[in-house]
């Protein structure tokens, strides 16, 4: 079951508040997403300092099956990206909810997260519950 400490999108991304005062959230893809993709071999990551908006493309992920777009679950400025994924994209297969995070974003409005799905809603959406 998906962790309850974060919110989810229909495109299988998660967003987790790391520091509420700084409006800082981390973003990644779900266990369901990595399982569907199969072995991930490459990430096209966004650049630090760039702005992302809700459901706009933030990068690409390539697996042995296909190349897929990554969509940002939040609106804000990118504070950091997980450069470990450049050499070790398999981190997202092994640990999608923790060390396989993709980027950290400073949000314009934390309230934006309220529109996303909860863990139980997401699990119901993917048929995992």
């Amino acid at each position, binding site marked *: 079951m998906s962790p309850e400490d974060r919110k989810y999108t229909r495109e299988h991304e998660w967003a987790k508040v790391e520091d509420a005062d700084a409006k800082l959230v981390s973003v990644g893809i779900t266990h369901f997403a990595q399982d569907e993709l199969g*072995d*991930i*071999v490459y990430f096209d990551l966004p650049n630090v300092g760039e702005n992302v908006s809700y459901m706009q493309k933030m990068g690409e992920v*390539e697996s*042995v*099956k*296909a190349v897929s777009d990554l969509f940002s679950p939040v609106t804000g400025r990118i504070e950091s990206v997980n450069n470990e994924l450049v050499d070790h994209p*398999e981190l997202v297969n092994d640990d999608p909810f923790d060390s396989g995070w993709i980027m950290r974003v400073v949000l314009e409005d934390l309230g934006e997260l309220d529109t996303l799905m909860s863990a139980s809603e997401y699990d119901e959406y993917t048929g995992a519950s």
Partner: protein
Amino acid sequence: MLKGGSRDTGMLLMERSVPGRAGVVTPPLDVPEQPLPDAAILRDDLALPEVSEPEVVQYFTALSQQNFSIDTHFYPLGSCTMKYNPKINDEIAFLPGFAAIHPLQPPDQSQGALELLHTLQEYLGEITGMSGVSLATLAGAHGELAGVLMMRAYHHAQGDLGRTKMAIPDSAHGTNPASAAMAGFDVVTLPSDKDGNVDLEALHELSGPDLAGVMITLPSTLGLFDQNIVEVCRIVHEAGGLVYGDGANMNALLGRTKLGDLGFDVIHLNLHKTFSTPHGGGGPGAGPVCCAPTLEPFLAAPIVTSSGNGAGPSYSLSTPEQSIGKMSGYHGNFGVLVRAYTYIRTLGDAGIKSISGNAVLNANYIMQALKDIYYLPYDRTCMHEVVLSADWQRPRGVSGLDVAKRLLDYGFHAPTMYFPLIVHEALMIEPTESENRYTLDAFIEALRQINRESEDDPDMVHHAPHTTPVSRLDEAGAARHPDLRWRPSV
């Protein structure tokens, strides 16, 4: 097999190298020695294998014999139309008048070759219901790019610069979005409805003054004929857009349906699929572009024109007035075009029509024989290919990839896997018209057997293939840490 034996392809030529061994012995110098103008261009740091001629021949012959090919195996690779390539195609292409002609030979010395190209343009126009044809594009995606560049040129010629969007169904051929993006369009995905047709409601929403057109693969990569195709063309035209047709799946329609009659404006054909010219690594390919009269002025150059002057037809090369320009050096892949011409002439009208009939029959035969044990996501009469799914095998620990790999052990090339993306665990099977019922029955039996194995011994299937020169390859490892260069071991 002994290591280093002539059939041991695991030992690379570099590893067989022995200092001083050579395939060719050059004769001693019998002219006065001259100093090189610049001795610095000589280098001795390039490591080349020192091997004998028979060693090289045995090595590469052994490698070639490990191939799966259409001359050795059933090759149901979906969407690729791996049909048999009749040998007469090569025989004609090897005629000295075709094989030894130079692309810069003046037209008055190459009337025969030009006549062949001109006749092929007419045949392809007749088959597709299109008036304009250019043979200059060298592959399917190359033809796509030419076609969408023509769409752009057409809109610009109308003074309409605001059409930036290209709509592409999620069941379209995989190269379409790349071609549209290369031509500068913003790609918008068009969803399929529950029957696998283009979702008309979504198309209506997208159709506006910024829509340049849609790129339709017919039949789609689901192997289905879009039942609303005429309506799709009407909606797009009404919004001022154009309809592009990806001809990758023309094998299903030959002699029966003309894309021009359905409302398509521009299409490409894959001669290396539909018209039995060499394919895959054995190319080169050819992707002629065919179009309606409105787009003819924009065709890629050159096209072959005929001007009868009383003394028999005279053929020449010409550039359409608002041409998108040249897409290749000369006249396209001429040897491939000769083969496609030969194929059409060998078969004639009735033969061409029998291709699509048998291709569709074979795919439906496989579908009916397997749909009780492999999930069939769109349960409709299919066209030239059937898309099954390994969804029912997956809970047993056997994926579509595993099924495909296990087929190699039964002596069959794998079907296309995991495409189209809208089908889970997709297995896309295209038998083509080349195979007889015995082969199809053996293939069906192999897939039934693999399904039984997925119940009895899923682990064995998961680690297939077991009988090929190399077993399951680490695709992810190869992509994550590519090791592309041989280095001497120290």
